[in-house]
């Protein structure tokens, strides 16, 4: 059983309410931070903790905080990114729905550290019922003196506002989120200037993911150094993983990043194995944007070593033979799944979600969807596979924001590892309408070159 820092109390009866949350030790980090610490020392603790952004990019949170500009007389803002939209990811929803006060507590401490008197939670519009849960939690915190004017008599004022989005994946990108918060289309901005200098309303702004801000609570309670002892290497603390697809126990799990991928999939504590007694074919371990891996490369690295559920191990081998931790959206595909169809579904998603600002992404995502559609429905040509490869190469790195990369990577990885399945579709158009390519050789042991 690994350490649980965020969800340990998530199932205590009544924890959604302030009284139970407080009785269980809630809001201690606010008392400690506001009464015994100053903003600089809080940032220092977060730096020491090694906490990396939990939204997907994995950028060190303490360092991001230290970039915020502090011009005289200009208000600063903290914005919580609750736009969770990466396919496969539903961890922030779980945290907000079951233990909302943990996020509010983290937000108060973080707002104090950054000097934000008006903090915003930007939540995806579809999570409409969670808006009510969060607003109830905010009102309770306020009624108990943890929000509003002169919090705990320390002179610090803070309000938290919940802003609903309206259905746009791109608003999870921080500058698009800021545009949306200003009441505009979610078109990402060109950086620089970075939000830390000019963010919402041209004011210095920090945007952090829900889980990142919730993790500030245990960091302040236990100290950054203690937090950094959990986990391994630069993967410190705990990580929420939302597991889905063809597994027995889909759901949200908190892991300490020392567990192997194999244990995570097959142990009863987590995914409980592949559903219906099927075999594992492939997995997208960090949300739809990260490279898909066949079973053999998922469980072991190209060097034949065990792969673990952490930032370093999941990316071992780079894109040639590895993937990424990403947002922690763990999507499992069993032997009956078709890689072409899955890739087509994701390509359609990115075409739908492209904001349209940059030509390579706006046009390229549409072309990729059309070509994949042809291959899936028996109208593909062998040259289409190379064409797909060419298009994704021309999107990657050529757009204002990372949505272009996010659209390119799933297509690239599918071709890289499953090219023979694409070729089979093209060469057997009728058969491919009737049945799937199946597990094929994707779970076979990988030949590991012996080095002297």
């Amino acid at each position, binding site marked *: 059983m690994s350490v649980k820092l965020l969800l340990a109390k998530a199932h205590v009866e009544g924890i959604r309410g302030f009284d139970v949350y407080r009785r269980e030790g809630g809001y201690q980090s606010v008392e400690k931070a506001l009464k015994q610490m100053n903003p600089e020392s809080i940032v220092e603790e977060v730096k020491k903790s090694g906490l990396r952004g939990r939204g997907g990019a994995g950028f060190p949170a303490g360092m991001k905080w230290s970039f915020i500009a502090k011009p005289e007389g200009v*208000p600063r803002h903290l914005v919580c990114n609750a736009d*969770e*939209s*990466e*396919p*496969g*990811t*539903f961890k922030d*929803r779980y945290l907000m729905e079951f233990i909302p006060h943990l996020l509010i507590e983290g937000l108060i401490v973080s707002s104090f550290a950054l000097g934000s008197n*008006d903090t*915003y939670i930007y939540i*995806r*519009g*579809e*999570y*409409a*019922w969670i808006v009510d849960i969060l607003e109830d939690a905010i009102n309770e915190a306020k009624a108990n003196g943890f929000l509003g004017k002169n919090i705990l008599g320390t002179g610090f004022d803070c309000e938290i*506002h919940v*802003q*609903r*989005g*309206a*259905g*746009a*994946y791109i608003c999870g990108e921080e500058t698009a989120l800021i545009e*949306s*918060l*200003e*009441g*505009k*289309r*979610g078109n990402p901005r060109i950086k620089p200037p970075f939000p830390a200098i000019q963010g919402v*309303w041209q004011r210095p702004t920090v945007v952090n993911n829900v889980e990142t801000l919730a993790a500030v609570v245990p960091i302040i309670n236990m100290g950054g150094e203690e937090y950094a002892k959990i986990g391994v290497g630069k993967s410190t603390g705990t990580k929420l993983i*939302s*597991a*889905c*697809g*063809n597994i027995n126990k*889909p*759901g*949200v799990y908190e892991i300490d990043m020392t567990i192997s991928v194999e244990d995570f999939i097959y142990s009863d504590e987590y995914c409980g194995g592949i559903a219906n007694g099927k075999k594992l074919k492939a997995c*997208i371990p960090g949300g*739809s944007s990260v490279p898909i891996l066949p079973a053999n490369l998922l469980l072991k690295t190209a060097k034949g070593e065990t792969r673990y559920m952490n930032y370093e191990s999941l990316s071992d081998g780079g894109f040639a033979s590895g993937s990424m931790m990403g947002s922690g*959206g763990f*999507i499992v*595909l069993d032997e009956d*799944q078709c890689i072409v*169809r*899955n890739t087509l*579904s*994701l390509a*359609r*998603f990115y075409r*739908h*979600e492209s*904001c349209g600002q940059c030509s390579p992404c706006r046009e390229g995502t549409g072309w990729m969807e059309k070509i994949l559609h042809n291959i899936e429905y028996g109208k593909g040509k062998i040259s289409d596979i190379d064409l797909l490869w060419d298009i994704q190469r021309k999107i990657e790195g050529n757009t204002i924001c990372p949505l272009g990369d996010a659209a390119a990577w799933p297509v690239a990885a599918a071709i890289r590892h499953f090219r023979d399945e694409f070729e089979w579709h093209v060469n057997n158009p009728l058969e491919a309408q009737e049945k799937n390519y199946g597990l094929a050789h994707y779970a076979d042991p990988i030949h590991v070159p012996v080095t002297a």
Partner: protein
Amino acid sequence: MVKFSEEQLTEFNRLVARYPEGKQKSALLPVLHLAQDSFGGWLSSETMDYVAELLQITPIEVYEVATFYSMYNTKPVGKYMFEVCQTGPCMLRGSDDIIAYIEKTLGIQPGQTTADGLFTLKTVECLGACGYAPMMQLGKHYREHLTKEKVDAIIDECKKNAGVLN
């Protein structure tokens, strides 16, 4: 004529008060949600012009936002909208079959509304319920772990609520 009630205006004022002086445009997304909920589940150009006037911005600023975000309906929709997720993780758990079943049962394709104006089917991209797939959004809430039987029950429930089935 489109006009918020006193109660809706109070909510409008609460939304606008969350932003700094002069930045009332920031309230546009929440106000459009309020307007859509208040005026029949969609945003007519009259509604959008009214929102522009209330927020003291130009109508084009409202149109460009209303057409960008997938949750705003710029055409009339049925009383109940089934927004069924079709993205990868839901597809792995059989969302294609659920969509086909709804199409057959209601006799409509995605984007269409039944002749009685009761149901609209809309396919949507990932709603963050991947572990509880297949799923749909119905109003403010999610309906998860969908099966054909559950879809039947939801349709009956909607008909009952609308008073066409006892």
